[in-house]
């Protein structure tokens, strides 16, 4: 109990004194996870919607695969990305290992199936509702997907948030591909792992609380954004 209290205290001081390392680490966490979120969303949202709209031969198998990929162990993703990006691996020439880009790649792989799967479930319901109308209006496939994405944007936002939560709280993969380099690839989760390793639980907990606060803040922020939009425009 004492440990937790002193952790809260440590977190409080880190924040009110605007600790330079803390700010740097926090900004990098956001930079990596938000970049991963944007890339994963651009891939996953249309794909999930497309899966809901389109009937094709291997659709069921694709959906089952997607749901299975949702449970990809991050450590394994990290290891595979590491082997691919290593100088002795197929993409070694790019020199991306131990850079934020490598961390973004790993996170994109981890959260894309998650976002696509949640998006697909939400879009399937909306498509069942809209199906007859959109067919009757003779819409093109592209128009159907765009309509579903726009009208289902709140559900998609939720899917994105779930992905962001998984990305920013992830440690296994980014530790391996990022290397937890001070001032280069250290983010909140890897810093927490490091401080725990040093037995410095106060700082670890402090960073942990900052991480939780950050996740809550982003969630509330996006939620209130979507709310004002809803009230203002419709």
């Amino acid at each position, binding site marked *: 109990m004492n440990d937790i209290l002193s952790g809260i205290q440590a977190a409080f001081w880190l924040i009110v004194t605007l600790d330079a390392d803390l700010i740097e680490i926090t900004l990098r966490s956001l930079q990596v996870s938000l970049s991963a979120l*944007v890339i994963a969303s651009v891939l996953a949202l249309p794909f999930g919607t497309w899966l809901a709209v389109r009937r094709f031969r291997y659709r069921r198998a694709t959906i089952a695969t997607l749901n299975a990929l949702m449970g990809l162990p991050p450590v394994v993703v990290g290891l595979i990305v590491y082997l691919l990006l*290593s100088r002795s691996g197929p993409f070694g020439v790019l020199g991306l290992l*131990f850079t934020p880009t490598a961390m973004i790649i790993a996170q994109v792989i981890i959260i894309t199936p998650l976002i696509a799967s949640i998006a697909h479930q939400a879009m399937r319901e909306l498509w069942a509702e809209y199906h007859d109308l959109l067919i009757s209006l003779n819409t093109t496939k592209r128009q159907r997907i765009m309509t579903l994405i726009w009208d289902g944007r709140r559900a998609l936002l939720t899917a994105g948030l779930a992905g962001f939560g998984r990305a920013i709280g992830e440690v296994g993969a980014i530790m391996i591909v990022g*290397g*937890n*380099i001070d001032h280069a690839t250290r983010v909140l989760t890897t810093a927490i792992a490091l401080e725990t*390793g040093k*037995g410095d*639980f106060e700082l670890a907990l402090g960073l942990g609380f900052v991480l939780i606060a950050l996740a809550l803040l982003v969630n509330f922020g996006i939620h209130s954004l979507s709310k004002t939009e809803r009230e203002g425009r419709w």
Partner: protein
Amino acid sequence: MKRIIAAFLILFSTQLHAETMKLAVTTSFHNSGLSDVLLPVIQDEIGIEVQLIVVGTGQALRLGRAGDVDAILVHSKAAEETFVEDGYGTHRREIMYNDFVLIGPETDPAQIAEAATASGALQKIEAIQSTFVSRGDDSGTHKKETSLWSSAGFDAASFGAWYKAVGSGMGASLNTAAGIDAYILSDRASWLNFGNKGGLAVLFSGDPVLFNQYAYLPVDPERHPHVNATAARQLEAWLTSPTAKELINTYQIDGEGLFTFNATQ
């Protein structure tokens, strides 16, 4: 959209720093805190930003073999010599040493504080099968521990449930030992910097077999042409310089010196 592009520019610009090099170091070296003293001075004096990849000795050697780092700083002599022989590193340069210590519950149930040698201390632990935490991660410290057990006449692999191989870094292993009041082998630096000592204390140290030699190995640029060999050379020169000697020998935690500089010119 502009903001997204800006974010990507920031992201890629991090790779465009003037002069950086990647150095794989062991957890125990990093935990000592010495790097926090050395790195800023290195940046000042020779203008190189050294990025540390903190891993176990086994992974550090692998990173060097794959060419993912420019040099490594580890402490496992046999493995280092193989690394150079196999043509992955140009040479091996000894920099400094610190020492390992045996840590255990303050009550010292096995009475290892009275032992004359490290082997004797381990024999006492084995005799009463007192709980012992091993790194179990093929790191330099783990290799050292295994060799100590065998020179004491035991095969660590055949021990029963009292011998717990946790497969973690030094800090995590110390956390485990503190949690279950177990004996553990640690480097002195990691121990002194460790914040969660619980009921543990240093019970045995000083046997010369416990000395822990650190060596610097630049990755061979003939095998991996992309490595920053110039920076690796400059760093080696600095690490063996009088400035480094002064900083390493005077580095203290809680009034205790940790490292002894022993690089030869």
